């Protein structure tokens, strides 16, 4: 290659680079009459089921808003749409995609990914570019002790998931004329940030009542078997057994307590619906207490979906299944954005951040009110008990649709 030729090529490359910089991002934050949100979701990889729920939750709101006149900012009504990428269920990829959404696509309104891990991957990036992110699926409390200013979460943080189960145990002890401190608690949670938060919440509440924690097992991530823990439960006979290990933990807990006939008055777990324990195990799943962020039976109201029940109906009509809370909280995240855009009356990200921080909004999903760290402090977790294959809200009292059946009947009596 001659030297002249090389110089020409170098010049051309240089020109192209300048051209790219001048042209700026391909997509803009607002295209004509459409506001574009950006989201990296898990379409492949281990979170793909919940990634789908998240997308359905987002899309349902987009459809509803666009059908009912759009978002009013200034004097103009805007339609909304979402630009999606696949984060492959990995936090690092979610971080890269946040960068791409903001820098290359020029998007100024970010919706959260699925799960605490990917959210942790994205938050530093949105923070760096000072672009607000409203998320509905990152519950780990480690997201909210880093001083992030641009992160807002509509869901209850993970330490609240099963704390209510301790309250239920204390209440039942009082009813039986016993001191709550006589209650013995067993904890078996996966060794990951989400479940360790749950453990922290349960430990705090148990300590408050003076209860004794007699089993405190941390299940490995490659969990395949809970025999050792359950044998310990059989030997020490605790009053409450708390299990958290995503769908795998929920499935193993129900299957193996039934197989090994482990009798414990209260069994409280997470991810009942995600693991479809009722569909898998039928009557063996009965009397289990399940933590949930939201349920269609709740009585919240809003101007978009009218009520929780109506939301569930709309969702089921559109996608053919009852919305799990993962979908509902995703929908709520979009609603919070819509509300903030209308109140701020501007597309200025700094102004939007402040408006988001001042949010006080009732949605079909629950009240949203962010504290200084960006987490929602206005919506409690709900505990439901599986009774004859149905999820019945039993605590806190405000949402209870039925009474908790205590203790779980012994296996020999079923």
């Amino acid at each position, binding site marked *: 290659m001659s030297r002249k030729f090389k110089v020409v090529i170098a010049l051309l490359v240089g020109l192209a680079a300048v051209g790219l910089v001048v042209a700026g991002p391909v997509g803009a934050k607002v295209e004509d009459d459409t506001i574009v949100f950006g989201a990296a979701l898990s379409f492949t990889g281990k979170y793909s089921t919940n990634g789908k729920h998240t997308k359905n939750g987002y899309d349902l709101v987009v459809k509803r808003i666009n059908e009912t006149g759009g978002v009013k900012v200034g004097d103009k009504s805007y339609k909304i749409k979402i630009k999606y990428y696949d984060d492959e269920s990995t936090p690092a990829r979610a971080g890269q995609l946040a960068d791409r959404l903001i820098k290359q696509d020029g998007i100024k309104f970010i919706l959260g990914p699925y799960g605490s891990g990917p959210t942790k991957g994205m938050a530093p990036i949105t923070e760096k570019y000072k672009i607000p992110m409203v998320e509905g699926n990152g519950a780990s409390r480690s997201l909210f002790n880093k001083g992030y200013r641009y992160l807002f979460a509509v869901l209850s943080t993970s330490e609240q998931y099963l704390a209510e189960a301790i309250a239920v145990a204390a209440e039942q002890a009082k009813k039986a004329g016993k001191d709550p401190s006589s209650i013995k608690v067993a904890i078996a949670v996966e060794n990951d940030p989400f479940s360790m938060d749950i453990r922290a919440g349960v430990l705090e509440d148990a300590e408050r009542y003076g209860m004794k924690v007699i089993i405190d097992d*941390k299940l490995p991530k490659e969990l395949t078997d809970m025999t050792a823990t359950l044998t310990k439960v059989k030997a020490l006979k605790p009053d409450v057994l708390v299990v958290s290990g995503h769908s795998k933990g929920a499935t193993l807990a129900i299957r193996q307590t039934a197989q090994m006939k482990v009798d414990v008055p209260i069994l409280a777990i997470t991810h009942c619906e995600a693991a479809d324990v009722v569909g898998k195990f039928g009557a063996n799943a009965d009397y289990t207490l399940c933590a949930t962020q939201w349920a269609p039976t709740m009585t919240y109201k809003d101007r978009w979906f009218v009520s929780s029940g109506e939301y569930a109906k709309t969702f089921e009509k559109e996608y053919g299944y009852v919305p799990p809370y993962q979908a509902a909280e995703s929908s709520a995240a979009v609603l919070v954005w819509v509300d903030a855009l209308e109140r701020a009356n501007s597309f200025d990200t700094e102004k939007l951040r402040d408006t988001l921080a001042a949010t006080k909004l009732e949605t079909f999903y629950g009240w949203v009110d962010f504290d200084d760290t960006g987490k929602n402090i206005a919506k409690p977790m709900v505990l439901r008990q599986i009774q004859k294959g149905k999820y019945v809200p039993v605590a806190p009292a405000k949402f209870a649709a039925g009474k908790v059946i205590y203790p779980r009947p012994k296996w020999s009596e079923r």
Partner: protein
Amino acid sequence: MESLQILFTAPIFSLQLLIDGILIGAIFALAAYGMALVWGVMKIINFAQGELVILGGFIVFSLNKAGLNAFLCIPLAAVAMFVVGWLLYHIVIVRIVEKDLFISILATFGIAILLQQLMNQVFGADVQVVESELGTWFLFDGNVTVVQIKVVSFFIALMLGVCLAFFMKKTRLGQAIRATAQDARAARILGVNTNKVYATTFGLNGAVCGAAGGLVVMTWVVQPYAGLAYTIRSFMIVIVAGIGNVAGVVFAGLGLGAAENFAGFILGTEFQAAFVFSLLVVILVCRNFKLRLQRSYLK
């Protein structure tokens, strides 16, 4: 140490742990047997072992969902997985057999990732189970429970192990496999089609994993990303037992199951894996020490 006290004050729970551990160990041993076979014959450490087990589980799950009896699905899954193993050999393994060990580790690791993603696409990321419709036996006032499916799994695993050992000893193909394991070049000179032997060996490994997967989905759960635990356990069992030692693999499998259960009970589940791997190091150090004491000379 409180947990250790329980075992002394109520020794009945030791029995529970021991029974469960041994029954669990049989399933590990089955998967490990496949790994030992491939390792011994082809000098390949198959890091996709766990994924083959999980795939077998998913096949049983799908067939069962289609209305077939769960136990009938196991041989079907084994046959299907034999084909999968045979195909995998002809597509990938044939290119790495008799190459550097490192290359085989990389290639099988790649297969593992590919299988995970494929299973995720085809079967979804959800955790799945198959109900065996079997119950539980109560012993000692219900203090010891014996889960029937685990007992059945134990005997199926043992039976398969015995069948395989018989196959290797008595059939022409088994003999050819053993000959190839001893010296592939010499076997070729004597007219053994080593390519066919390798394909069959990998297919057999697939079949064994398929059966193990069927037992796993009936006893515990399967999920596209849950394979690693079975790969690691198989690897460990083979290391302890030594390649080409069927009885060793079975005993190491049962021992590992029991050791894991006791460690989980006494130390807590977070130390379960750590304990087992520490045990592996101790066994290797002891073995090395014993070997050094042996006098070496040129034969």
